[in-house]
């Protein structure tokens, strides 16, 4: 769509939406949010970009091949389950680690975060695969 207003707005909104999606992903465990919602928000932003600039441009800024991103997301989710094996526990048993980050102090990081990141990547890639393929067809 050849609309300069849409393009200008998208240039501002897209980075905000992407950052917001990551915030939603990270806050999901204690407040409303999570991998699914974060992924959908990011996808909505990218869909807006595709409408403003065209699908090929959107593929260019995503940079990685979408199918690869999909596979990587599934891999993250699977791997998060395998970590439990190192502790002799069944598949997908959650584990939490205390990390001491200099700026933020003690932070609890768990395998569920890796799982949620996997879900996030999968949701983004499948939505964008569907939207971009249909837009290009």
């Amino acid at each position, binding site marked *: 769509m050849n609309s300069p207003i849409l393009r200008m707005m998208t240039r501002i909104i897209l980075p905000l939406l992407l950052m917001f999606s990551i915030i939603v992903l990270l806050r999901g465990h204690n407040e409303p949010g999570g991998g699914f919602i974060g992924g959908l928000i990011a996808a909505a932003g990218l869909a807006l970009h595709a409408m403003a600039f065209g699908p090929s441009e959107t593929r260019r800024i995503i940079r990685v091949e979408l199918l690869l991103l999909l596979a990587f997301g599934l891999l993250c989710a699977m791997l998060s389950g395998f970590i439990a094996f190192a502790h002799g526990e069944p598949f997908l048993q959650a584990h939490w680690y205390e990390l001491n980050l200099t700026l933020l102090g003690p932070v609890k990081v768990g395998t569920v975060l890796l799982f949620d990141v996997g879900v996030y990547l999968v949701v983004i890639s499948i*939505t964008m695969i569907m939207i971009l393929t249909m837009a290009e067809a």
Partner: protein
Amino acid sequence: MLLASVILIFAAALAAPGLTRLVGGRLASMVLALAPLAVFLGLLAQVGAVDQPWLTNAYPWAEAIGARLDFMLDGLAGVMALLISGIGVLILLFAGAYLGHQPRAGRFFMFLMLFMGAMLGIVLADNLILLFVFWELTSVTSFLLIGYDHERTSARRAATQALVVTGLGGLGLLGAAILLHAATGTWRISEIIAQGDLIIDSGLGAPIAILIFLAAFTKSAQVPFHFWLPNAMEAPTPVSAYLHSSTMVKAGVYLLARLHPALRDVELWAPVLTIVGAVTMVLTILLAMRERYLKRLLAYSTASALGVLVFLIGLGTELALMAMMAFLITHALYKGALFLVAGSIDHATGEKDITKLGGLHASMRTTFGASILAAASMAGIPLLFGFVGKELVMDAAWHAPMWRTALVASAVAMAGLTVSVALLVGVRPFVGARVDTPTEPNEVPWTMFIGPSVLALLSLVAGIIPDQVFGHLVRGGAWSMAQAPQELKLKIWHGFNPALYMSAGAIAIGIVLYLVAPALRNLGAALRPLDRLGPQSAYERSLALLDGVSRLSTSFFQSGYLRFYVILVLFTVLGITGTLLMGEARLPDITAGFDELRVIELLLLGLTIAGAIVAVRAKSRLGAVAALGVVGYAITLLYVLFGAPDLALTQFSIETLMVVLLVLVLYRLPRFAVYTNLTSRLRDMVIALAFGAMMTLLVLETPTPEGMTPVSDLHGAMAYTEGKGRNVVNVILVDFRALDTLGEITVLGIAAMGVFTMLRLRLRPRQLQETGA
């Protein structure tokens, strides 16, 4: 050591293709033959006392489900294993010369050795499930080997036929295994055979017997499942000599022998085995007289010999069981030899038709010698082991506990016809005047005549001193079946008894039949139309029926119309859930809580309903999409109102993206037009209303199930303590129910790939014309 033997063969199988690529077929076959040779020698070292198992190896594997790797070597297993490994060596050498030069020889050797390992597994296994796995593996490798020359339609059809028939038997074996476990509580064969009375008491004796019959009769080509064996002769000769005469087809007989101690008291056991065995042994060798091709003659006579073995197990007397073991060994020796001779003749002359062969004794001396000895053993001529075996069979028939006259007559008939076939196959091609053949015959290489020569010489030596050579093994095998001491010795002369007269009579009949063989062949050809009533045509007609039914059902269910698929799915869900709900549901009191309704809830409700109505009655696609969007956002607001923020966020985002997707799709469709008539729209309305009503009932029913505590309480309590998160919904999604979520995202991924491939695969107009669309 037993597991190691099987693994050694499998390892050799995997090494075969690479080895063949490296040193060529002939040399590779000689190297590969070292594996079964090692197993053979190892087994010989393990031969123990007659009346007990020689070696037991047990390895726990998955104890919780009772899956163990149990192996046992006793008399019966020992005889079979020695035959498998010993003859295997000779077959590999033969195959190296016969087809070693072919480009795919490496794969052939691999399949052959995989088969060898599986067959060894069958006879050494002490666990029913292990036995079943190896059993099916032999069926599969047999399929691969019969269809080795896969460019020929006849080979493919024969391979499929063998697989389907023996596969059916495999199912029978599995069923029998499960029932045996149910009756005795164990999967171990050595324990099961000691518990025959438990099996009878459980009342499962007859079903188990029937299923075992199914497995054994299909594998060992008993009537009416005999038809796959002659067709399996499409395989290369080494395969026919190994699988379809010496080893694989004996697996069914082995199964019957192995389980005989457990099942012999089942009422069906002895009669069925005796009758089926006797019918098979006469009928198949009679059918052989129709044939002109060497290998088909041998195939039918193999089926007949298997019938003899089954018949002897059915008789079950001490004499019969000894006879069965002796006959098992002698048949493997002479049949293996004769098949290899047939292969050598084919290799040397290019001719397989006995009516077109003759006078080869001059050009193929060693093969001729081996062939004469093997044929004599098959005919039951004295001083050969075949005579010892045949005598025992005749004697067992003479002393049969029931139906004596019929059985004696059948035995003599079978023996007579066998003599005639022996002469036709082993003697005819070599004697008489030289007949011109496609290739000028020369003696075959040593790797090809060593097989028949060794087997024939063994028949000769064992024919002169039978008890010293095979006595111990035969008694050991008979013990495994009878679980009782064995005293009979193998003798070459039993005196002038009825059995001797029967044999003499059979030889006389056989010679006469041989002389009139051409007339019999013509008679057989004239009777061919009767084949339409036979089991082979029944098999083909059932397959055609299956094909027709599949075609009909596919064309009904896969109509190509999306609306049909949707209606089908809705209908099925409606039917199943609906019937269940009808039985259980009480109509809930929907007026409860009416007084607590807030204005905003009523407004949202009104908005949703209005949106739905507009969507249905819209006059443009965009209008319909927009109205659906309104419905979605209204539901989002309802979620917000009732305190489900995650749901609301998800619904909101999906709704937005859905609008985007729908616009992209609808953009490409032609102008809005009315495609359906009133009746289909009414039908759609009825189905939609019914489905909606069912979902409503379902939702109203689920919060109040009787006698169950909601799991959400548990999740709510555990969310912070175990899940370390305050957002219960998210904790459930990624922690408590992570496996479900993993499945869901995988499905999403597959759906996306489906969209991707279907949209990228755009047929060009010319392709559309070609598919007739």
